[in-house]
């Protein structure tokens, strides 16, 4: 049973990817994608119901898994090397060759393969990650089917590049599943590298100059992460003589020498999660088609980085390394939120928001108390749903209006009511109670309150978040009144993922007490909260989730009801000093000619401008990272 589950979740996507690449008939490929998605989603639920496990799979086609992993690693690294040469990037070449040599030497000559241990171990963290990856990832893949058709129609491509696109999109899901279920650190490394290659290929999908440049940047940064990972692996093996992750985590408590590899692993995770100063690869990755941004760069792949930190967190709890991790995360949260305020490109706002939220998860991993871990896990779940929802909505908007600029999205409700409402809902679930992301943030703030240098950036960053989210939501609704707005055409495969993600974000928020009790508590030594009637209770704080949900929902129902009744009211245009004309979008200007009413959002470029802040943020981020690695030497 477990064998087949693992096969479906990890190997299945690799097979499906090959099929996607080989089968050139579009409809069959779409069916393959749909089928894979459904299969993954269902299997992940079954795996979760099955519970925690520790498993050694049988040899695949007669060959033990570790050989498959080594071959896969070599093929990956050689492919990356090929592209490094093609793009003529020296640093990438050096990093890849370094990884290749170290890895093969390590695997073939250093590791004692007679030590047997189950290479796949899952606790609730892994199972939750598998659920998120499989369900959210599958919905994104389904959305991608009509999206890519339209995308290529826009580009007027003669030869479709969709086979490669879908192949990598699905492969990454399999790699992520493998990463979170692995107990063997070499396996983790291999899946890590699959995501690096996948990200590189998908970012450069459109083959424009910007896309290629940004994909190379993503490549070298992620290769840097990979190199750090390998050094960590080898160092850990030299001190502990094992590649089993569980043993390495346990060994961390002995402190001292073991901290360095753990620090390097955290570094690798942080680069993967685009923390400062390595955030530019994620920002550049926004040139990729939107399903890529949704899958890789918000809901799943970057979560690999935080997963590594969370997984190894028990190993460095209470050490200086932990404090550095917290500091790096807090700084990233603040800097990313600040820079998002000056952005008008919708995807860049989402990218900065992702980086910020990942920083928050790192803060929680660093603080490492039961409350903090609760916050981290809940944030992973809720952020994945809401962020994927927002990315997909923005993708749909971009295809309809041809722009990602928020100013062009002004009044989108009048043109695309369904997408606009879903986007507004997504934004509300990202920042307001009673939804999950805010619940997680509340837990995180309460967990971080004793740490002065963490709570100040968290407080300021959280207020900045409110600014860039609420103005976007407001602007989407900013259209002159129309009694009847024609809903836009949306295919089934477009609407279904959006509704599923929106419904998921809302319903999961309501189920937060159950998620906490079933998913999080089993992982912790002591439950940080007691739940009574849907209220999270703890000597230090209380979050009355169900009561406030009830009251706010009632208020919302009254509001909608009143708005419905208000249709009989008198509708006049806005106040324009008495100079309004019959058209609500103009007023009477000089010589009696109509002048268009225009307004804009404040972007605060002089304070939060990207060009202004990036240099300083990178310097600070770099220093904090150096502290992280250097501090582990102590």
């Amino acid at each position, binding site marked *: 049973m477990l064998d087949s589950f693992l096969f479906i979740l990890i190997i299945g996507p690799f097979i499906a990817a090959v099929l996607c690449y080989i089968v050139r008939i579009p409809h069959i490929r779409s069916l393959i994608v749909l089928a894979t998605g459904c299969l993954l989603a269902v299997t992940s639920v079954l795996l979760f119901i099955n519970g925690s496990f520790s498993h050694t799979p049988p040899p695949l086609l007669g060959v033990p898994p570790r050989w498959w992993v080594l071959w896969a690693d070599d093929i990956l690294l050689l492919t990356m090397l090929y592209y490094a040469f093609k793009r003529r990037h020296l640093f990438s070449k050096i990093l890849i060759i370094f990884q290749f040599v170290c890895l093969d030497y390590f695997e073939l000559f250093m590791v004692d393969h007679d030590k047997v241990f189950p290479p796949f171990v899952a606790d609730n963290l892994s199972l939750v990650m598998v659920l998120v990856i499989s369900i959210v990832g599958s919905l994104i893949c389904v959305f991608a089917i009509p999206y890519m058709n339209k995308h290529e129609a826009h580009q007027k491509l003669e030869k479709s590049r969709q086979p490669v696109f879908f192949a990598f999109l699905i492969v990454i899901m399999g790699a992520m599943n493998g990463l979170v279920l692995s107990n063997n650190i070499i396996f983790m490394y291999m899946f890590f590298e699959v995501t690096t290659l996948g990200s590189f290929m998908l970012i450069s999908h459109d083959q424009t100059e910007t896309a290629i440049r940004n994909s190379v940047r993503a490549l070298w940064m992620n290769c840097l992460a990979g190199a750090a990972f390998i050094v960590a692996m080898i160092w850990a093996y030299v001190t502990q003589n094992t590649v089993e992750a569980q043993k390495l985590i346990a060994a961390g408590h002995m402190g001292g020498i073991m901290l360095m590899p753990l620090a390097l692993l955290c570094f690798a995770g942080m680069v993967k999660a685009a923390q400062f100063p390595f955030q530019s690869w994620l920002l550049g990755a926004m040139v990729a088609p939107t399903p890529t941004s949704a899958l890789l760069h918000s809901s799943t792949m970057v979560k690999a980085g935080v997963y590594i930190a969370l997984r190894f967190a028990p190993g460095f709890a209470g050490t200086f390394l932990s404090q550095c991790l917290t500091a790096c995360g807090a700084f990233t949260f603040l800097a990313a939120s600040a820079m998002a305020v000056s952005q008008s490109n919708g995807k860049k706002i989402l990218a900065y928001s992702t980086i910020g939220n990942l920083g928050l998860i790192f803060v929680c991993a660093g603080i490492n108390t039961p409350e903090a871990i609760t916050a981290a896990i809940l944030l992973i779940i809720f952020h994945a749903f809401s962020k994927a929802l927002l990315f997909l909505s923005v993708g749909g908007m971009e295809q309809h209006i041809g722009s990602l600029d928020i100013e062009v999205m002004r009044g989108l409700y009048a043109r695309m009511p369904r997408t606009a409402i879903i986007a507004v809902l997504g934004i509300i679930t990202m920042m307001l109670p009673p939804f999950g992301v*805010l619940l997680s943030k509340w837990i995180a703030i309460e967990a971080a309150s004793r740490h002065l240098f963490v*709570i100040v950036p968290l407080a300021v960053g959280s207020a900045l978040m409110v*600014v860039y989210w609420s103005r976007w939501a407001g602007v989407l*609704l900013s259209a002159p009144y129309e009694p009847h707005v024609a809903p836009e055409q949306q295919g089934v495969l477009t609407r279904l993922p959006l509704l599923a993600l929106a419904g998921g974000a809302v319903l999961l928020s309501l189920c937060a007490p159950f998620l906490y009790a079933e998913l999080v508590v089993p992982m912790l030594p002591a439950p940080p909260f007691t739940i009574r009637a849907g209220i999270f209770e703890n*000597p*230090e704080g*209380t979050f009355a989730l169900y009561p406030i949900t009830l009251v706010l929902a009632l208020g919302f129902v009254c509001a909608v009801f009143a708005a419905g009744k208000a249709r009989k009211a008198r509708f006049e245009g806005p106040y324009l000093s008495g100079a309004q004309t019959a058209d*609500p979008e103009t007023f009477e200007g000089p010589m009696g000619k109509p002048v268009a*009413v225009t307004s804009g959002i404040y972007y605060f470029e002089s304070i939060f401008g990207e060009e202004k802040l990036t240099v300083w943020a990178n310097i600070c981020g770099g220093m904090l990272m150096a502290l992280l690695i250097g501090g582990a030497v102590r």
Partner: protein
Amino acid sequence: MRAVVLVIMGVVVAPLLGGLIAGVDRRLTAWFQSRYGPPVWQPFFDVAKLFGKERLLVNTWQVVCAYIYVTAAMLSVVLFFLQSDLLLILFVQAVGAIFLVMGAFSATSPFSQVGANRELIQILTYEPLIILVFVGIYLATGSFKISEIYSQTEPLLKSLPLLYIVLGYALTIKLRKSPFDFSTSHHAHQELVKGFLTEYSGPYLALVEIGHWYEVVLILGLCSLFWATSWVGIIVLVGITYLCEILIDNVMARMTWRWMLGSVWAMGLSMSFVNLIWLHGR
């Protein structure tokens, strides 16, 4: 049973109290300006009149946002009376503030748009400061719950004096008193006509006003927590604080948002930091 009474107090008594405070505010302002001013129950006449006006709208989002604003403000006051968690109260109150801004953004009037942008800057300015004040209370009492504050023997003002001043900044911004009244302002102090409330009229403006009363009660309630050990202390502290607010309002001119963001963050964050380090050191 006690909870039910507190809920009723929060829902019914709080806005009445808020309206009365608004009336006293106008009376005192008039006294500072050598005038008589309206009677103290003037705000109730204002709100009743507004409810009786014709419904004039620019779009239906205003309706939704006005109702959610009142709901959130009311809920935050009820949570305060039920002595719930301070951070939760802040976040619930933020729901209302954000929906009000969204409603303002949804109107295509330039006054509304600029007012909404400025209101966001005001929210940006006070929110981190209030979070840090709550963190200070947590460090002093060991919990974010208001019930813990009432079980202290010494008033919080003794250990959190600088944080009280920071709360005063947040109070001035929330009440939109000069020098922080650029997103909208009291009475007839127009700059952007009525700023982000320009397009709200009639019953919806009345709802917004009632929501504002709830928020005034909430913020003054937060001030009262700093001398929660005695009733006299509460009345004196809140009275003096509100008097200072009115005085500052009448003495200072409206400034710019840049000045607000710069000076309030500089003063507020540094005072918070000093006070929090102080608490850590104890």
